[in-house]
Every structure is written in structure tokens, then in C-alpha cells.
């Protein structure tokens, strides 16, 4: 029996939208409704859903960025709902997030080098010289140059910024990375390069990914296991090829059927071309 690196049980997250005059919640949105899942170390679980499915919220609960309303989350040996002080810092070193928007996830007033070294500075790791050396080797690893460290985010393209974000996430040598639509905002060719980079890094460092995405083509290519969410609930979960070839749930079937295929011979919307 594998030891799971992530075990989430019955996670729910409610958002109170309206309150009555007395302060009692009048309208509540259930963003995540009782979702349970587990992930084996070194693997990739894709969390798939359309907008409003709750996948991003669940991802943030798992990463300890949002407090769930109820449930239990054990990740990288930590109880995510009981993190304080020392355990919180230790958790942050193990679990990192890469966000969707490369234009807002980097501080415009901090150089790229500073952004990558921030994690090490916050956790008081290494001395200044070693931090710099590690930062430069991270830049190289993600396909950038060491002298890029002096530049500011606005001087880079979207794809380059995502690479900087990846370097920043790797600086603390985490075990688990939540990629929250990390490639969704990128151009086709850049997306491919960043996905390849993530795959290579997973092989090199034995990383575990929670890959949140709405793009089923990318998910089939990238994930070991897939969990489908709709309206806050976990609809179906299983091994990648199995989900795509033999989906059990109606919604999963509908989702897969709706994805356009990059092959005119298999088109369904119009007549196949001559």
C-alpha cells in the first residue's frame, strides 16, 4: 500500500455572500463540497473542471492558502489545518504553488533575482553568497540567463515570467507543487515548453504535482491520474487513460466529447473535408 503524500478528506469550503442585518449569513456559496482525494508521491494528479467547479479553491485549500470550512488535509507529513509557527514554515518549504497569471504573480518592484531568493531569505537559509549561487543555477535550469537576475518582471514575456515563477517555487526544494492553471495563459508553443520543463523537473526531483487545469488535451498528456470536478463536487477520479477511454460519469463523457480534436479527419462539428 503506497504511502500517499496528500490525503484530503471531505474538504468543504463555503463563502458567505450576503448577511442579514443581524449578521447571520443569508447567502452561502458552496465552492467545494465534501471532496476527498489522495496523491502518491512523485506522481501528477490533474484536477479538472470548468469555471465554477471549485478546482482552484480546492487547490488553495490544499496549499494552505485558504482555510477550508471543514474536512481534513494531510500533506507532506503536515496537518494543513493545524499549521502554526514552526510547522507552518516547514510546510511552506515543502509545498509551493505556481499561479495562473504570469503578469500578477511576480512583484513588479522586485528584481527577478530577488524574487527567486525571497524564499531562502524568508526561511533564513544559506548565506548571501550561496543564495545568489543557487538563484543563478535555478535561472539556468529554467532556461534563463544569470544576468536576468538584475531585471524586472515587466522586461520579460509571459512564458519567461512563468519560468521565473517556477524557479521561485523550486528555490526551497519543495516536494509538492500545486500548479494552478500554470500554463493556461500561455501561447501554444510556450505552453509546450513550460509543460516539458515541468515534466523534466518532476523526473529530476521526484516532485509531486497537483495540476489544476481546464484543458483536457494537456491533462491527458501530462497527468497520471485525473479527478473531475463540477459545481464543487468530485464527479469522477481515476487513472488517466482509463478516465479518457472509459469515462463512467455522464459529465465526464460530456466534457471529453466537447474537446476539439486537432485532426480534421475526426471532426464532428462539420462534414469531414474531402
Amino acid at each position, binding site marked *: 500500500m503506497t504511502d500517499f503524500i496528500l490525503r484530503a478528506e471531505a474538504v468543504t469550503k463555503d463563502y458567505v455572500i450576503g448577511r442579514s442585518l443581524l449578521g447571520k449569513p443569508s447567502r452561502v456559496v458552496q465552492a467545494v463540497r465534501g471532496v476527498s482525494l489522495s496523491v502518491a508521491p512523485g506522481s501528477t494528479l490533474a484536477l479538472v473542471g*470548468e469555471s465554477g467547479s471549485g478546482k482552484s479553491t480546492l487547490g488553495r485549500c490544499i496549499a494552505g492558502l485558504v482555510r477550508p470550512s471543514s474536512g481534513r488535509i494531510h500533506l507532506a507529513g503536515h496537518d494543513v489545518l493545524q499549521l502554526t509557527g514552526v510547522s507552518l514554515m516547514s510546510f511552506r518549504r515543502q509545498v509551493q504553488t505556481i499561479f495562473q497569471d504570469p503578469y500578477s504573480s511576480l512583484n513588479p518592484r522586485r528584481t527577478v533575482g530577488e524574487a527567486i531568493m525571497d524564499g531562502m531569505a524568508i526561511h533564513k537559509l544559506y548565506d548571501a553568497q550561496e543564495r545568489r549561487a543557487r538563484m543563478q543555477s535555478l535561472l*539556468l535550469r*529554467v532556461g534563463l540567463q544569470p544576468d536576468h537576475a538584475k531585471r524586472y518582471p515587466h522586461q520579460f514575456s509571459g512564458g519567461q515570467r512563468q519560468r521565473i515563477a517556477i524557479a521561485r517555487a523550486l528555490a526551497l526544494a519543495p516536494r509538492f507543487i500545486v500548479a494552478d492553471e500554470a500554463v493556461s495563459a500561455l501561447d*501554444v508553443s510556450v505552453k509546450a515548453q513550460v509543460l516539458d520543463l515541468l515534466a523534466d523537473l518532476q523526473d529530476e526531483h521526484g516532485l509531486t504535482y497537483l495540476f489544476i487545469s481546464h484543458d483536457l488535451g494537456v491533462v491527458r*498528456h501530462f497527468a497520471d491520474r485525473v479527478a473531475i470536478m463540477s459545481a464543487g463536487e468530485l464527479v469522477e477520479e481515476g487513472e488517466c*487513460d482509463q478516465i479518457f477511454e472509459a469515462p463512467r460519469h455522464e459529465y465526464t463523457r460530456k466534457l*471529453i466529447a*466537447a474537446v476539439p480534436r*486537432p485532426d*480534421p479527419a475526426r471532426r464532428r462539428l462539420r462534414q469531414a473535408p474531402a
Partner: protein
Amino acid sequence: MSREPEALLTVRNLAVNFDTRQGVVAAVKGVDLTVRSGEVVCLVGESGSGKSVTGFSLMGLVDPPGLVTADALRFDGLDLMRASDREKDALRGKDISMVFQEPMTALNPGRTVGNQIAEVIRIHERVGREQAWNRAVELLQRVGIREPAQRAKAYPHELSGGMRQRVMIAVACALTPKLIIADEPTTALDVTVQAQVLELLFALQAETGAAVLFITHDLGVVAEIADRVVVMQAGRVVEEGDVRQIFERPRQAYTQALLAAVPDVDAPRDRARRLSQRPVISAQGAPQ
């Protein structure tokens, strides 16, 4: 040997330059484009390829500091480079219409959707208010909006993204145009909604025989809908051809790389597979 009938839209050497503080930016650099009646042409490219600017310039929507020049720009026999503003206005919305990416910005948030459709009708045809309204409601029904009479009184922000896009299509199809220019109309939509909207758009297209110039970066969509494909990069046309040829026998390296970069949802998982050809790191430095 019979002469081929003239294409509906002929564009030769289209160039669009923007005069900015940093100098002249050439967004489109000499593009040739042809769309025949009833044909679906996909204009494919990544960001910065100039595909959207091309689409806008065909509708005359490029404003100063942008400057549109072309050797030829003919639509349905009319020379658009020499046509008067009046002639061009008569075309827009009637013979050529456009569907935009973000319906929230393309639709007027201060007017009901019914009114917006009716307005387009009344600009081009002499019909009374009530008649235009009724046609608007009919159109809403045709685009698959339930309770159309009720919905016609709604404002754009009260509708979902998919419904707004259907309204946009209703506006675009109100006067049975000969050419519909669609600029990334489904990019912002969920995949199931995208499928519905595309189904609608091409059902209407089949019915009316309109030609469609569909601008997108999504190669899956292109494969589903295109008759012909035009691939753009950095303001130029890199390759064009009919859809099967482009997907099965791409000639240019850029096209090949683009196709290789798109994972197919029907292809079994291969953990060792990589989508890009170049390594991410090289000895000298960063590939862009």
C-alpha cells in the same frame, strides 16, 4: 477553361502600422488573404502574430495611430480602399459582421440585448420599432436562447458568458451577412459552452451559406471547422492551404512545431513524450 468566380474577399499585401511613441510598430506586414463564398477560413497564430489586427482592419476597425494599407482590398466586388465611408458603413453589420472575443466589452452594457439586435436591424433596414423587436426575439430563439421574449429585455451582465456569445452571434447574423469575421469568439468560454456556441455558429453558417473568417490560436477548433487554414507569425503569413494538407502535411517548420505542441485528447498518455522540440536549456542561453 472557365474562369474561377472572383472570391468574396480578396486581400493583397495588407499592412497595418501603428505609430507609437517608441516608433512605428508593424503589426501586419504584407498579408495576402482570400475567402470564397460559403468558405470557412481559419486565421491561426499565437499572440503578436497580427491575426486579430488583420480581422479588425477588414472591418475598418483600426483607428489612428494605426494605418492600414493594401494593394488590394475587395469585398463582393467593392474596392474597400476607395469606398466612401457611407458605402463601408452600409456593409458593416449587413454584409460583413463581426463576432468578438469578449462579449461584455462588445455589447453595450447599458442597453438590453433585444434593443441591441433591433438597433442593428434598424440601421440597415427600414423597419419599425416593433417589427425590429420581434425579429430580434426570433433571432434569440434561433440562437437557442430559451424564453427569448423574456431574455430580450435582459442586460448583458445578467446573462452567462455562453448566452452573451449567442447574443453576439444573433447580432452578427441579424441581417444574413455574406461574411462573418469571428475573432477568438470562444476563447473565454468553458469547453462545453464552446462546443455549443461553435455548433450554433456553424449551423447558421450552413443554413445561410455565409463565409466565415475565424481567427483563433486553438488548433483543435481549427481542425473541427476549417476548410482552409492561414498560419500567421509576427505579422506575416507563414503557410496556408486546405485543412487536411496543413494538419497532415505541414510544410513550414513553424507550422510543424505548432502542431507538435498541441496534445490530442484521444492520444494515450506517454510520460516520456515531450511537446517541444528544442531543449529548454541550451549551453549558451535561453530559447525564447
